[in-house]
Structure formats: structure tokens, C-alpha cells
């Protein structure tokens, strides 16, 4: 029962944060909406029994990506007094398309929903899986991180002169 309450409050927080990301008219409100959304996502992970995943989500996303996004906002955004800093071109066609894609996802994935809820394992077996079965994927992810790091430096440095 309390799990249901927790699930629906996390859902409300996630949807509210996502709506703030999509609809907010000020840059910082959008960033904080994204933060609320990511925290709600970490809460979902913890609720489903993946405690380590929740921690990783908070470290990587709230601590990394969100701060990076705030840095980018500070670097590139010029405030014009009186005008809303974010604009959207709201369009019923976009609304219908997005809602259609969401409905399609729900319809397509409905047969795969498992009703029997059992607590997830997590913990030490995660490390075993990551360093045995999924070792190539793990190493490839490390390689991709290195490539991304080099790419970020090369792109943001710009031309040499």
C-alpha cells in the first residue's frame, strides 16, 4: 500500500518536472524542473530495488549532467530584461504526434508487463555481472567515455587561432 503511495507521488514529481522542462518560460526553472525529474527517477530506481542504480543516477545526472547544463546556461545565455528567456512554438500537431508516440509505446509494451512483483537482487551480483558477462560492454563504455571526453575538449576549444 505504502509502495503504491510512494510510486504515485514519485510519478507526480517526475511528470511535474518533465512538464517544467517542456513548458517553463525561464531557463533556471527549466533546469530545476530537470533536477526534480532526475531525482524522481532515482527514487523510482530505489523503489524497484536498485539502490546502487539510484545512487549512480544521482551522482551522474544530478551531480554531473545538471551542473554541466547550468554551466552551459551561464556561458551561452544572455538575459533580455522583461522578455521570457525561453520560447516555444506550441503546435497541436506536435502535441498529437507526441501523444500518439506515447500511446504507441504503451500499446506495444503492454504484453511484456510482468505482474508478479519480486524484489530485485542488486548489490554484489551487479559487480559480478558487470565484470564477467558484460565485461566487453563495460570496457566499450569506458572507451566511449574517453572518446566523448576528447570530443568535448576538441569541440569546445574551437579553432586554435
Amino acid at each position, binding site marked *: 500500500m505504502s509502495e503504491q503511495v510512494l510510486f504515485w507521488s514519485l*510519478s507526480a514529481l517526475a*511528470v511535474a518536472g*518533465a*512538464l517544467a*522542462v*517542456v513548458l517553463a518560460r525561464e*531557463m533556471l526553472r527549466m533546469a530545476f524542473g*530537470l533536477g526534480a*525529474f*532526475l531525482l524522481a527517477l532515482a527514487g*523510482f*530506481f530505489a523503489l*524497484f*530495488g*536498485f539502490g*546502487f*542504480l539510484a545512487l549512480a*543516477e544521482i551522482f*551522474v*545526472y544530478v551531480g554531473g*549532467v545538471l551542473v554541466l*547544463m547550468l554551466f*552551459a546556461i551561464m*556561458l*551561452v545565455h544572455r538575459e533580455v530584461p522583461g522578455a521570457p528567456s*525561453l*520560447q*516555444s*512554438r506550441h*503546435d497541436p500537431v*506536435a*502535441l498529437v504526434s*507526441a501523444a500518439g*508516440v*506515447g500511446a504507441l*509505446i504503451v500499446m506495444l*509494451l*503492454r504484453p511484456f*508487463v*510482468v*505482474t*508478479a512483483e*519480486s524484489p*530485485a537482487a*542488486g548489490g554484489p551480483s*551487479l559487480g*559480478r*555481472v558487470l565484470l564477467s*558477462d*558484460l565485461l566487453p*560492454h*563495460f570496457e566499450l*563504455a569506458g572507451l*566511449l567515455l574517453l572518446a*566523448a571526453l576528447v*570530443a*568535448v575538449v576538441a*569541440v*569546445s576549444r*574551437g579553432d586554435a587561432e
Partner: protein
Amino acid sequence: MSALAVGGALFAIGLYGVLVRRDLVAVLASIEVMIAAPLLLLVSLGAAADGSSRVEAVALLLIVLAAAGAAVGLALVVAIARTARTTRIDELRQVSG
């Protein structure tokens, strides 16, 4: 089932943001919402399965990949803002077809 509905709704909200936002940083944030929704679906569908630690490992790798993508995207935004003097996608005429 309810997690499936929430994930679908979040993906639709993110997609709407990508379609209607006019600022590159906001489009990137909407893409983050779109990436997170399938992650939620994966975790909610995989929590009840037998190999749940494999699901956790895959979700962890996906978080890492999405973070790398976000970092490169934000670097591109900074580079675009430096050369084009704007981050509004309807003012970036030199990349239009």
C-alpha cells in the same frame, strides 16, 4: 502496468519538448527526459525478472552513455553559441537545408 503508463507519458512529454522548444539547451533537456523514460521502463519491467542484476548493469551502462551524449551535446551548444551568437534553433540559418 502503471510504470508503463508513466514511462510512456514521460517519453511523450519529452518528445513534445523536442518538437516545440526553440532553444538548444531546452531541446537537450527534453532529450534527457526522452532518454530517461525508456530507462524507467527497462528498470520497471526488469525488476520482476530473474536476471535483475543484469538489468541493473545494462541500465548503469545506459546512464553512462546518456551522460557522455549530454556532455558532447552541451559542448556543441557552447561551440554553436560562440560562432553563431545565438542558441535559438530558428535563428541558426547557416545549418538549414
